[in-house]
């Protein structure tokens, strides 16, 4: 998951104990994990979301309940699963239910606090595309498809999006809308954090990853990105967070 980008940056304050080296992907995973309150019930997609959720569980949020669309409720994996259906998820779950049930009784039932989603494209309102690049009938790239996203985006109390920042991903216009941005609470990227303007629902840059300038984020965004006047720098990943994240990655 965190292998794509490997540019190392330094925390901004060399006088703190936290000034260890970390990658942008690590900063993203840590920022995403921190958004999860302890005890919250999370619907977890595979990849970056799964990394972030399991990191949260390993650090400040041990009582987070991880629900995977494979029907495993309360899974407590010790290593990062490669798929949403790895055997360890069932072994460590409080309950395993059928796939029709997980979507009907649990997701649609309104029992999930936070849904974590990734995507290939995102627009300024947090709508996501994981279906095609190019025309639907004659796609340039056929992506896997919407999967659980349409109903995750609709039924969780809030949605967190984890996605690497680039103009190819942050687009003026989606090639296909796989899920709605209506409930997106934050978009966590390797460059910063975007949150919707409460009035217009347009995403605004509210936080910067350590060492990143707002201008760089604007440049990596395919629409004229609004920057909050009080845009703050994220607390850099702490030693304990980095250690936990790396232990998870190594145990994969």
């Amino acid at each position, binding site marked *: 998951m965190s292998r794509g980008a490997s540019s190392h940056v330094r925390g901004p304050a060399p006088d703190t104990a936290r000034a260890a080296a970390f990658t942008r992907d690590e900063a993203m995973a840590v920022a995403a994990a921190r958004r999860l309150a302890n005890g919250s019930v999370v619907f977890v997609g*595979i*990849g970056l979301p799964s990394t972030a959720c399991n990191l949260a569980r390993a650090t400040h949020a041990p009582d987070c309940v991880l629900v995977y*669309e*494979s*029907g*495993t409720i309360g899974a407590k994996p010790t290593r990062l*699963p*490669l*798929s*949403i*259906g*790895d*055997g360890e*998820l*069932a*072994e460590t779950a409080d309950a*395993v*239910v*059928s*796939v*029709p049930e*997980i*979507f*009907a009784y649990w*997701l*649609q039932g309104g029992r999930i606090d936070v849904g974590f989603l990734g995507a290939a494209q995102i627009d300024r309102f947090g*709508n996501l595309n994981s*279906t095609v690049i190019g025309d*639907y009938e004659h*796609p*340039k*790239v*056929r*992506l*896997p*498809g*919407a*999967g*659980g*996203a*349409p*109903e995750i*985006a*609709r*039924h969780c109390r809030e949605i967190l999006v984890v996605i690497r920042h680039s103009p190819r991903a942050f687009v003026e216009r989606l090639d*296909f*809308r*796989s*899920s*709605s941005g*209506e409930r997106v609470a934050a978009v966590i990227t390797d460059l910063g954090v975007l949150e919707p303007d409460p009035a217009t629902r347009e995403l605004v840059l509210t936080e910067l990853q350590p060492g990143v300038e707002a201008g760089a984020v604007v440049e990596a965004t395919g629409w004229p990105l609004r920057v909050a006047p009080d845009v703050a720098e994220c607390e850099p990943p702490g030693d304990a967070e980095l250690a936990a994240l790396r232990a998870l990655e190594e145990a994969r």
Partner: protein
Amino acid sequence: MAHVTTLSEAVRELVHDGDVVALEGFTHLIPHAAGHELIRQGRRDLTLVRMTPDVVYDQLIGMGCARKLVFSWGGNPGVGSLRRFRDAVENGWPAPLELEEHSHAGMAAAYAAGASNLPFGVLRGYDGTDLAARTRVAAIECPFTGERLAAVPALRPDVGVVHAQRADRKGNVQLWGILGVQREVVLASRRSLVTVEEVVDELEPVPGAAVIPGWAVTAVAEAPRGAHPSYAHGYYDRDNAFYAEWDAIASDRDRFAAWMEANVLAVAR
């Protein structure tokens, strides 16, 4: 009562060219061996149904068995693309592939409706997406509250195929771990085939296990390691390394063909 037979017999008897066939297994218990037998027997013009087409569907599509795919997520979990699926959709190779695309929740509701002998399933979904315009979904109004919800047509495949851990000699099937839509696809399909790790005299109870009575199944065939590279909880683990390797194998048409020749076509069962 299910008859316990060989995999090649079962496929010969139950699956015909042009059938709507669902091979299910949500990451777990994917009936790879049955998929390979379909390829060996050269089935054509199939409408393949599956929530999460993965390697075995990449193989069926790449070998030209499929005319249409009904699905909700077609990727290599944790790895990336399905190269043969993409080649079919993007380049029409080896043949064009018609798509009917749903969300997971929609597919799950459609299977449950099929198992329940209802013509449609109901969910709160599809709204706010471009999917609705590209698939078979309709609005339905609650007769009590007036709310509008989504209806999906029931899935009733000609043949449902799943893998399970074991069966007894009467064809009663036992499975545990992640249950997916295994029971639903068997109950929704006109005919059903369950491949199992082993046929045993007695099904010992296992926590978390579901049993599908033999009289609700058409045929059972023993296929040890029949889910590989997927897994059978309690028998063997998911072969994550193979899933990663598959990406390279399937990236190239010739390499794919050679792999299929050596590992599927040349294998007698």
